């Protein structure tokens, strides 16, 4: 996990000004730290001159923001309609069993965060799983094992 570095935050803040830049700033912080550290939100509130409650309400409203640290790798399981009717639930179950965390959860070693997403729009390939932006179509529970193996081999360690 990356430690909280105010210099990086300053860069993020420099990109936006005023109330309408709040989301953009939070997105930038989320991208850099993979979550919104509390100190960062306080700083954003001071710099943009917005009540902390407003920063917090935006941070908790949108799914893209997380208030807790996230894993090195993110696995998104699409649970859109097409994926749902093609068995996304079984794929998700398998991932939950293998990783030992539910949707939104991060493994204890902070390697993986498991997420569900409502639809990625590649419905022909359902069920779809995305590992760090890399799309995997026509997933089955069996393929989950291979996917995790590949991810951990690339990492050079076990999940």
């Amino acid at each position, binding site marked *: 996990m990356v430690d909280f570095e105010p210099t990086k935050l300053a860069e993020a803040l420099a990109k936006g000004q005023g109330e309408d830049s709040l989301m953009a700033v939070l997105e930038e912080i989320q991208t850099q730290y993979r979550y919104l550290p509390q100190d960062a939100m306080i700083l954003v509130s001071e710099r943009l001159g917005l009540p902390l409650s407003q920063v917090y309400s*935006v941070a908790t409203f*949108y799914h893209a923001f997380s208030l807790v640290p996230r894993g090195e790798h993110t696995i998104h399981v699409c649970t859109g309609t097409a994926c749902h009717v093609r068995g996304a639930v079984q794929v998700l179950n398998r991932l939950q069993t293998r990783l030992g965390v539910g949707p939104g959860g991060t493994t204890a070693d902070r390697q993986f965060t498991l997420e569900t997403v409502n639809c*990625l*729009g*590649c*419905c022909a390939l359902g069920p779809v799983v995305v590992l760090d932006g890399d799309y995997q179509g026509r997933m089955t529970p069996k393929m989950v094992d291979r996917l995790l193996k590949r991810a951990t081999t690339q990492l050079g360690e076990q999940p």
Partner: protein
Amino acid sequence: MIKMRTPQALVAQRQKMRDSMDPRRRRIRVCDGTGCRALGSRRVLDRLCETLREAGLSGEIEVVPTGCPGFCELGPLVSIDPQNIAYNMVSVDDVPVLVAKTIAQGEIIDGLVFVDPVTGQPIIHEGELPFYAKQMRRVLELNGQIDPSRIEDYIAHDGYAALSKALYEMTPEEVIHGVKASGLRGRGGAGFNTGAKWRFCRDAPGEVKYIICNADEGDPGAFMDRSILEGNPHCVLEGMIIGAYAIGATQGYVYIRNEYPLAVQNLKIALEQAHEYGLLGESILGSGLGFDIEIRVGSGAFVCGEETALMASIQGEIGEPRPRPPYPAQSGLWGRPTNINNVKTWANVPLIVRNGPDWFASVGTENSKGTMIFSLVGKISNTGLVEVPMGISLRELIYDVGGGMPVGKEFKAAQIGGPSGGCIPKEHLNVPIDYESVTALGAIMGSGGLVVCDEDTCMVDLARYFLNFTQEESCGKCVPCRVGTRAMLETLERICAGQGRDGDIEYLIELGEEVKRSSLCALGGTAPNPVLTTIRYFREEYEAHIYERRCPAKVCKGLITYHVVAELCTGCMICARNCPAGAVYGEKGQPHVIDLSLCTRCGLCKSLCNFDAIVVR
């Protein structure tokens, strides 16, 4: 790059680009949309370039990454010009043969062409595929033909000609009149006359006005907007610039989902190029019109597809809707008159301006003009993106364009309009697809998501699925939606768990009608639709769940059991080793048994079994 400062400069540019493009040139088009990418089209593309280079052919043959041509089912798609050969399901390993045979010798590779499932005959040319035969590709015409990252491709195909015509040959009034006369209705789902909507915004008092392109395509099972923005972003930008001219707006926004990274990327490239060519910014094409567009990426909230919530989100606030009136045309973004249209609506505008309202209205029904884009998904042979004339029957759409059901499956219902829509059952297969007919059946046209269900789809579970979605996405501002959808969901969950009670159906209908009537925005106002229409057409399935404790489609966990067929089980132990509940036992080489008291009905054993030895009862 030179900024174009006159309409003549645009014409000259177009001619220059066309001159550099011989229609007989040899090129290979590879679908580079999200769908085909997920199937490995990027690797195919790289390998293709590499192989052509090794063969010394890279100078002669151009490799073009394109947007989605729509036939996602058979991706990765590769097309070869000028012969118009359509290859599908092309893998990296197919590339060397493709280059050696088709490119070098003009030979067709049997294994890569489409085989008509009815006649068994191979179909070589893209234009002859039955998938495209009944389509009318107007908005999607260039998807799959041009490189979306090259504005030159778009300009060469008459791109920005409509903008030039609007700026130099028409008054804003005439543009609005034309759009209105064409009969174009909002393609986001509500179906309001676009020209009339523009008129409200133009007539609203105020110096500063905004326009917005709603690309927050959140409906699960819908990817029309994504594909247009990925494959032909300039047509949307052109529509917006024309809209800005007609309405008198100085600033535009495209609000797009963060789940669509490729669409965001291609849109960014398109914006930069439009700037370079003088099609955005100050004095567009030298006309004096100043207009710019910014991208705003959403942060994962379905409700932000609702116009007032979307505007709040652009302003950096939480995406909660507010009551209307005032409508955005009077008081929208930062309190200024604002016009919001869907991606597909904007994409239709250049076509209307260029070809005239009569051309647009020559297709469709009395009140629904033009074409409609659907994403066909679910239990259907040809999953993909299609554009059909309004008024086509549901049967033609599903069977002729969509190729019908996979072998051995029977059509049960089409779910149109996603979580806001409803389902249309078999007996209404002949319904013409237009705004009024679809609404009369209890569904909505929506933005074009169409999910096909077969006998393996449980309609109660489907209703539960959609309600679970809307319930999670409800922003919580108004009580009917926040509490009402939760109460409905709890009832449905109970029914699916096998604990339905007498009166549940009546309760769902009563509550559903009330939530529809009293919710603040369209999310709550339409959330009960999937429940109400499934009750309307499949009441017997609800009754089977409640009174017979039976799920006819064998989907609902609380009402099914898993069993091992002893004759088929080889005792390989794969199920026993993987069962998360430890519910499967048996010795190696001996038929296994499932302990139903431990089984959680997750279905993993069935999906892992290599011998089809596990059945659901």
